[in-house]
């Protein structure tokens, strides 16, 4: 009898992984059968990516067993994982943009004429064969940077297949694809299934998994909370498994009294990016800013904060027109910007909690050019206490903290400058459920103190759950404005796709 039908292609037993201060995975089991699409579901921080990294050899497990065709194996590193037939396609592709599709597919394993001389013709032929078998129309000689995102993804798939991948993991493969491209991806996945590849599919788009999945496993806080055949489960059941409670208390929204105008933007534009942007933020108000990726949300935030130049428009802070030519100027006017990408833009990971918390305020904390350490320590101690930052001490390197605590340090920076207009860009991305609720409560507190909050988010439930008012961007314009009462997921989505006119404010 074919062993592929009696034992899973890959089985994980009791996988455990700890990072400093967090248990990322706690006794997780997973069976992957040849020819199935296994959907992995879970909130951000539930442990999906850690699990993928263990299978792909990027991270070593602390405990547990990995069985390939029923035989226990050790995965010694990413190359070893590839050799074992365990392939992964990350959300951010690992392709060299200036090389061709074929060169990328065989990177590090180029067919040779002699020692040290690449057989270019054999390479193109072999790469083209793999691409053709995948059923995608890509020329192996085309340079990767000229391919569309969907085509680049297919080059990644081809690369994995050229390594005889038996298990292929895809992390959010549809996040940057158009609907047509998604249909083509699904067709490719079906072909891979027919070839007996076991696929792991991670997506936040719940509706997709009912189209493409065979079975679904839900992770929550690093634990395996259930595996279901797709036909025997429902969306509400999966949500309950993921969140572990009713959705109601996920967003502890409180409404604060709305006061004076805090920030007004008139006719802001930047060529090709932002077009005639107008909006107002009032004290005590949380305004959600929705829109698809690339609609200009982050660009708007950066322009208001002085991080990117603008071609025109006026900005009023507290009713006075201001020139904001640099982040420094924005900070001095009481703005605070919590960037989408903490690691690359929000924090200096090599510096301590204290040094990060005080970075925008060091100048203010200095007398005659000398930093006042006592003042810094006091401010940091206050932030650690009020934000409940879990850190061994103020001198701990920020890079060692968990995502939620890092986000609190970023917020701490702006509390220390006594900002009263906050721009949050994806405030809860990559942090766990518990920390999310804490961040929401902090946003409530800011509003209650009379601060104005602009909250950019890709998660519509978050926008709907936390905002008093909602702006929707589409193609660099404000395409809709809704009160919390009138907004629904459908209305926001329609506006984000550019299918709705602007509602009256």
């Amino acid at each position, binding site marked *: 009898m074919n062993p592929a039908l009696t034992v899973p292609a890959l089985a994980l037993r009791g996988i455990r992984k700890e990072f400093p201060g967090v248990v990322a995975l706690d006794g997780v089991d997973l069976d992957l059968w040849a020819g199935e699409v296994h959907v992995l579901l879970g909130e951000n921080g539930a442990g999906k990516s850690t699990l993928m990294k263990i299978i792909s050899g990027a991270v070593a497990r602390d405990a547990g067993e990995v069985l390939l065709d029923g035989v226990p194996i050790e995965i010694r590193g990413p190359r070893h994982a590839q050799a074992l037939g365990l392939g992964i396609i990350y959300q951010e592709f690992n392709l060299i943009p200036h090389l061709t599709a074929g060169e990328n597919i065989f990177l590090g394993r180029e067919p040779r004429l002699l020692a040290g001389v690449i057989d270019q013709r054999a390479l193109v032929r072999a790469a083209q064969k793999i691409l053709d078998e995948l059923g995608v129309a890509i020329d192996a000689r085309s340079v990767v940077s000229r391919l569309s995102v969907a085509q680049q993804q297919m080059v990644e798939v081809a690369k994995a297949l050229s390594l005889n991948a038996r298990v292929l993991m895809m992390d959010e493969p549809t996040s940057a694809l158009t609907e047509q491209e998604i249909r083509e991806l699904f067709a490719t996945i079906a072909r891979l299934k027919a070839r007996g590849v076991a696929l792991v599919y991670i997506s936040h788009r719940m509706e997709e998994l009912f189209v493409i999945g065979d079975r679904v496993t839900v992770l929550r806080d690093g634990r395996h909370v259930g595996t279901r055949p797709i036909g025997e489960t429902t969306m509400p059941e999966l949500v309950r498994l993921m969140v572990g409670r009713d959705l109601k208390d996920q967003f502890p929204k409180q409404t604060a009294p709305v006061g004076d105008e805090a920030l007004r933007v008139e006719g802001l534009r930047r060529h090709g990016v932002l077009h005639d942007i107008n909006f107002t933020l009032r004290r005590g108000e949380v305004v959600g800013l929705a829109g698809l990726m690339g609609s200009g949300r982050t660009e708007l935030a950066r322009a208001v904060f002085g991080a990117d130049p603008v071609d025109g428009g006026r900005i009023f802070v507290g009713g006075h027109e201001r020139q904001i030519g640099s982040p420094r100027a924005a900070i001095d006017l009481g703005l605070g910007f919590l*960037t989408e990408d903490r690691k690359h833009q*929000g*924090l200096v990971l090599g510096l301590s909690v204290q040094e990060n918390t005080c*970075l925008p305020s060091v100048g203010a904390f200095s007398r005659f050019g000398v930093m006042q350490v006592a003042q810094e320590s006091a401010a940091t101690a206050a932030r650690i206490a009020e934000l409940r930052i879990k850190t061994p001490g103020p001198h701990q390197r920020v890079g060692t903290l968990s995502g939620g605590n890092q986000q609190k340090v970023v917020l701490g*920076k702006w509390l220390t400058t006594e900002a009263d207009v906050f721009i949050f860009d994806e405030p809860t991305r990559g942090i766990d459920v518990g920390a999310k609720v804490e961040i929401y409560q902090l946003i409530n507190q800011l509003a209650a103190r009379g601060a104005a909050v602009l909250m950019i988010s890709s998660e519509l439930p978050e926008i709907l759950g936390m905002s008093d008012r909602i702006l929707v961007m589409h193609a660099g314009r404000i395409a809709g404005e809704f009160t919390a009462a009138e907004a629904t997921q459908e209305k926001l989505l329609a506006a984000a796709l550019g299918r709705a006119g602007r509602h009256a404010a």
Partner: protein
Amino acid sequence: MKPREFLAHSGRQFGTLVGLFALCAVLWALTPHFLTVSNLLNVAQQTSINAVIAVGLTFVIISGGIDLSVGSLVAFSGVVTASLLQRTVPVPLALLAGLMTGLACGLVNGLLITFGRLPPFIATLGIMSVARGGSLLYTNGRPVSGFGEDFRWIATGEILRVPVPVVIMIVVYAIAHFVLRRTPFGRYLFAMGGNEEAALLSGVRVRLHKTLVYGVCGLLSALAAVMLTARLNSAQPIAGINYELDAIAATVIGGASLLGGQGSVVGTLIGALIMGVLRNGLNLLGVSSFIQQVVIGAVIILAVLLDTAFKRPKR
């Protein structure tokens, strides 16, 4: 700070210090003359010039940059100072002009990097050649020699029986340590080197402080030029060749990362002393200068190997 935090912060310097002491112990065992007051002062004096340049380079390297032009700036500032002295310009004025020359060249480096958006390696490589050629043109390739006793005092004088160059080194290091640890400028260097985008979005005026750090580095090169000119009683247009490499070596042995965001003044001082002690000890032992180069190269590699071995994160 609690003891554990202190060790976490200073452990790297501690390791380098142990290396320095071990090196001294070995040399003492091999040649008793090594551990005499006069020889140790001699080592400190020989180290002082490299040490002063290395401090400037440490600042630049912490900020995430590199400066290859320091050696040429030593020559250029040196000949400017020397030619003014020869025209009987008062010593303080000539010194000031020399230092300002270094500062100005450093600021040009900084402006090329910030407003010209050149990579630091390229900008300072260019200035390295320009300043070298400028020194040769300015002097017609001939050394400028013969100064008064008051200028020579910078090399030959003593304050409380400590040679003046050593005093200069100690003062420079004390100020640099204070600037790095206790002023916003020092904090910004670490922030820019660790994550430039985050520093910018935290309101750090990145271009201003980056330009300044190259200015500081040029200024310290000029100070080293004055010390060198006084010691040799002559300014050479070909002085300072390979000084940038010695200074980079001291900085790296001292624990700075060429990727930026890491480093310390104390570490660099220990690094410079290790290089100085090694040269001195090998000389005392009568080791040929050819072998010396091999040994020094090996020590640089060993120091960084040990460093990465201890710092390597677990998978």
